[in-house]
């Protein structure tokens, strides 16, 4: 009777070898994919740290060719633009998310949901063109408002989907309990469901803010940038990523240094927001109380 051989044969050894090689390749792929993150952050931290000083945060840019100065107006400008974008975009996004989650069971709603997802993939430069045509042209001027509008257009689909997901996580039992107690639908949504999902809504907004704070392309011909303090929301306004771009492609070494330093600050802001969201999510911020 033939015995059963359990020892490794040459063919088997070959297959084992392939298995090990592929495993090594997969590990290598992971290292290669993650290396840029490490490299980029390292360089920004390394090159940027040296340029961080009080001047950067408090001084206006000097005239072209002169050394020194800072990016105070860009920091303020980014803050203003984010505020405008949040004011214009977040209410629409949250309400749209409420619609999709609480009332969105029709074919229209499914189509809207799909289109919203597709919207998140619209190139931001195209959004810039839209804002240009909608606001800059009629106003005959670049402005903070148009920049904020462009950023709001980017925020809305993101906030819509994160709000919908957050509200979907609220257990149906909660809604039924409220309605069963005789609470009107609008009250139940406004005072029970939305507060329960508030954690997810807030983190969604934070992630959207993190995203728009680094957006440059849509600001190129809306906010346009400026080397002076803000003079009203209907005038051009400086923004941090915009300034980084303009300084990086210019020939002045001093500007390059400032660009790295500004990148450092922007990176801190964005990574900080992302880490915050992560920590909040893990600590049960989103769980229904």
């Amino acid at each position, binding site marked *: 009777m033939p015995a059963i051989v359990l020892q490794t044969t040459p063919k088997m050894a070959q297959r084992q070898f392939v298995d090990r090689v592929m495993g090594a390749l997969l590990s290598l792929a992971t290292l290669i994919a993650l290396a840029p993150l490490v490299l980029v952050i390292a*360089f920004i931290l390394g090159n940027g740290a040296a340029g961080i000083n009080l001047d950067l945060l408090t001084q206006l840019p000097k005239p072209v060719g002169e050394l020194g100065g800072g990016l105070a107006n860009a920091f303020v400008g980014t803050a203003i633009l984010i505020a405008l974008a949040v004011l214009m975009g977040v209410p629409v996004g949250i309400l749209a998310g409420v619609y999709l989650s609480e009332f969105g069971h029709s074919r229209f709603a499914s189509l809207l949901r799909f289109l919203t997802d597709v919207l998140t*993939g619209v190139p931001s430069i195209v959004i810039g063109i839209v804002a240009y045509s909608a606001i800059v042209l009629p106003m005959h001027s670049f402005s903070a408002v148009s920049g904020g509008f462009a950023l709001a257009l980017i925020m809305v689909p993101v906030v819509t989907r994160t709000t919908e997901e957050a509200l979907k996580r609220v257990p149906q039992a909660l809604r039924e309990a409220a309605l069963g107690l005789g609470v009107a639908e609008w009250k139940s949504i406004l005072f029970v469901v939305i507060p329960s999902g508030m954690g997810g809504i807030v983190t969604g907004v934070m992630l959207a803010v993190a995203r728009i704070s680094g957006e440059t392309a849509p600001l190129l011909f809306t906010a346009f940038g400026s080397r002076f303090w803000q003079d009203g929301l209907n005038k051009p306004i400086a923004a941090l990523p915009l300034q980084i771009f303009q300084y990086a492609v210019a020939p002045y070494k001093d500007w390059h240094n400032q660009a790295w330093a500004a990148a450092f600050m922007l990176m801190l802001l964005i990574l900080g927001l992302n880490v915050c969201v992560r920590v909040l999510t893990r600590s049960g911020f989103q769980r229904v109380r």
Partner: protein
Amino acid sequence: MAAVQVAPRSRRLPSFLGAANLPDLTFRGIVFVIGALGLVGIIALIVGSMIAESMPAIRAFGPSFMVSNVWDPVKRQFGAIPFVYGTITTSLIALIIAAPISIGVALFAVEMAPPWLGNAISVIVELLAAIPSVLLGLWGIFVMVPFLQRVVEPWLIDRFPGVPLFEGPPYGVGLLAGGLILAIMVVPTIVAVSRDVVVAVPIAQREAMLALGATDWEATARAVLPYCRSGLLGATILGLGRALGETMAVTMVIGNRADISASLFHPSYTMASVIANEFTEATNDLYVSALVEVGLLLFGVTIVMNMIARLLVWSTARASEAQLRMA
């Protein structure tokens, strides 16, 4: 509680609006008008203004816009080919590099790595996705491009003399730089979606292959990968969509010259870059309109890619669910 007012039910209202009382109706109205119609309005605004603003150029050049490679603002002759070429080439380079690597990362994270490592990888990938384009471009200009110019490109010229892909002086900036930086930006997208797709493959598939006497890699390659191949394709196309629309990082490293050349070292121009660079310099309305038409082209292609990709990914998810539910 206040007495509930019962409004007469109108048969002409859509059922969504058929709330029983005024406060509910008002609330639903607000949500619908600002939320839903707001979204619809945004979509309409985007599509509408892109088409409207590019109309002058569409009327002036018609279909020749897509095939002409003359971009002469002075003579008011505009053709999009140089930018289409640059966009396609850099995106292809990006995908060829990023797709296999990203799918490899997804497989590693799901099939090989212990859970803590798999999660750590997801976190790192998400952080990579959060880096703004302009910051990657900054790193690109001052770190990657000099490296390409001094080390990589000369080496390639040395090793592959006479190959048209590697001809010409090593500028550093150019198609290769653009493709590489796009690859870095596209990896997080493909990894994230691929990971979801691979996780959705039922364990029973892998176990069935293992039970036949397969090594881990064979089980992955013969059972898992074929099962989710359309989802992986969707992930790749989503990455392509992202690559096509990327602006800042590419603009900063591609050299910004409207030339078509076979060499990867040659400076080039993408659709997004030309808009970014020339929009504010556009001296006449036809110029602006031509740029917007380039944007419209970009918009159309990205939207279509996005839709196809989502349908592919969605169909894989449905297939897994269906199999699980099957008796």
